[in-house]
């Protein structure tokens, strides 16, 4: 979707400000919403790409005004209701109308193991690559209304396959219909001038991770 989350190349956002001695979480609620999101993902009612898309669906003005973990809170609440784990009424009142009986709840003793053995997005599947390193490609000029990993600034631009990373789940379809559609993931090199015009440095490049379905031969 052409959302405000797709920020590459936008102007007017201000300076990059690095906080000295930054804590991992700035408040207790940030830590809790982080942990709630990871623990809820363990229930396997949604995949990581659905998780990302839930945050992108925050209304644009709210997205820009929100802090990072406010977006996580928005996305978690959305998925909990959409996937039927809680009702809108329960969210409103913060009281359970019923328990979820068959929930495979993540236990503290299993956290370390869970974090070590997360579901991987690399797939051991025999899928032929459409491109080889060195091939010239053009990123598709496409504007899907759902989730996509093809940033707007790269669409319609010409690049070169830098490397082939093997077969991965395709997030664009995995987020929308749980269709894993395994295919090759590449790093594609775009010259800075191809993306941003002649004011950009002739030496510089932007490398973008793109899948077979994002690319055509150039």
């Amino acid at each position: 979707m052409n959302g405000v989350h797709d920020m590459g190349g936008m102007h007017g956002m201000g300076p990059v400000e690095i906080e000295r001695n930054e804590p991992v979480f700035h408040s207790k609620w940030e830590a809790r919403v982080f942990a709630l999101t990871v623990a809820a993902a363990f229930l396997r009612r949604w995949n990581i790409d659905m998780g990302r898309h839930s945050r992108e669906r925050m209304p644009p003005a709210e997205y820009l005004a929100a802090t990072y973990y406010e977006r996580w809170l928005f996305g978690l609440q959305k998925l909990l209701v959409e996937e039927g784990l809680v009702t809108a009424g329960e969210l409103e009142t913060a009281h359970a109308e019923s328990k979820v009986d068959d929930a495979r709840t993540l236990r503290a003793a299993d956290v370390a193991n869970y974090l070590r053995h997360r579901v991987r997005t690399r797939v051991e599947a025999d899928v032929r690559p459409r491109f080889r390193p060195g091939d010239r490609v053009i990123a598709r000029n496409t504007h899907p209304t759902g989730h996509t990993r093809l940033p707007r600034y790269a669409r319609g631009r010409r690049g070169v396959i830098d490397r082939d990373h093997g077969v991965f789940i395709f997030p664009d379809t995995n987020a929308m219909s749980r269709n894993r559609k395994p295919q090759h993931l590449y790093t594609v090199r775009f010259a800075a001038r191809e993306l941003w015009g002649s004011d950009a440095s002739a030496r510089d490049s932007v490398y973008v991770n793109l899948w077979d379905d994002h690319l055509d031969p150039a």
Partner: protein
Amino acid sequence: MSDHHHHHHDDDPVREHDRPLSGPALRVKALESLLVEKGLVDPKTLDELIDTYETKVGPRNGARVVARAWIDPDYKKRLLADGGAVIAELGYVGRGEDIVVLVNTPKVRNIVVCTLCSCYPWPVLGLPPVWYKSAPYRSRAVIDPRGVLKELGNEVPDDVEVRVWDSTAELRYLVLPERPAGTEGWSEDELAAIVTRDSMIGVVQVTVPAGRK
């Protein structure tokens, strides 16, 4: 950008008890109690998850990898060939474990961004800092990397190439910064101590602290 606005006061350990929670703090508390009541999460699990990323998994992991690569050419060679697997030898595994290591040289500077959200190599750097997830960095790193680096005190000479890596997949990048001059003969521990998080994202270089020169 409001990415920088944090509600420190909501969770001030002293004041939290005598003032009402506001905004997200209140909503998160309500959500947690609901999910516990539903049997979907266990509060002890949440504590364990938070402790993991506050005290166990963080940029000291990445610094260890960088220091080892600086003193052991064979390790560096293997690291560049198969980053994730070689990093896993130190026990740094988990979410985002397909890691590609990018080498800085006198002629090439690498910087990593996630323009769409916040993709980041958790096993070696932990959770990303606010500036990495902020609109200013996400918007500017791809179109004006030299301007961003200059603002951060890391101006890139014209004859040095800048490579920006937009991290949009479950494949994460770790920058191997250049080893600073004046560290010859240092131990792995001494070297690891000067490697910063931001140098492994690529926005600053590693320097020798004034006291060590």
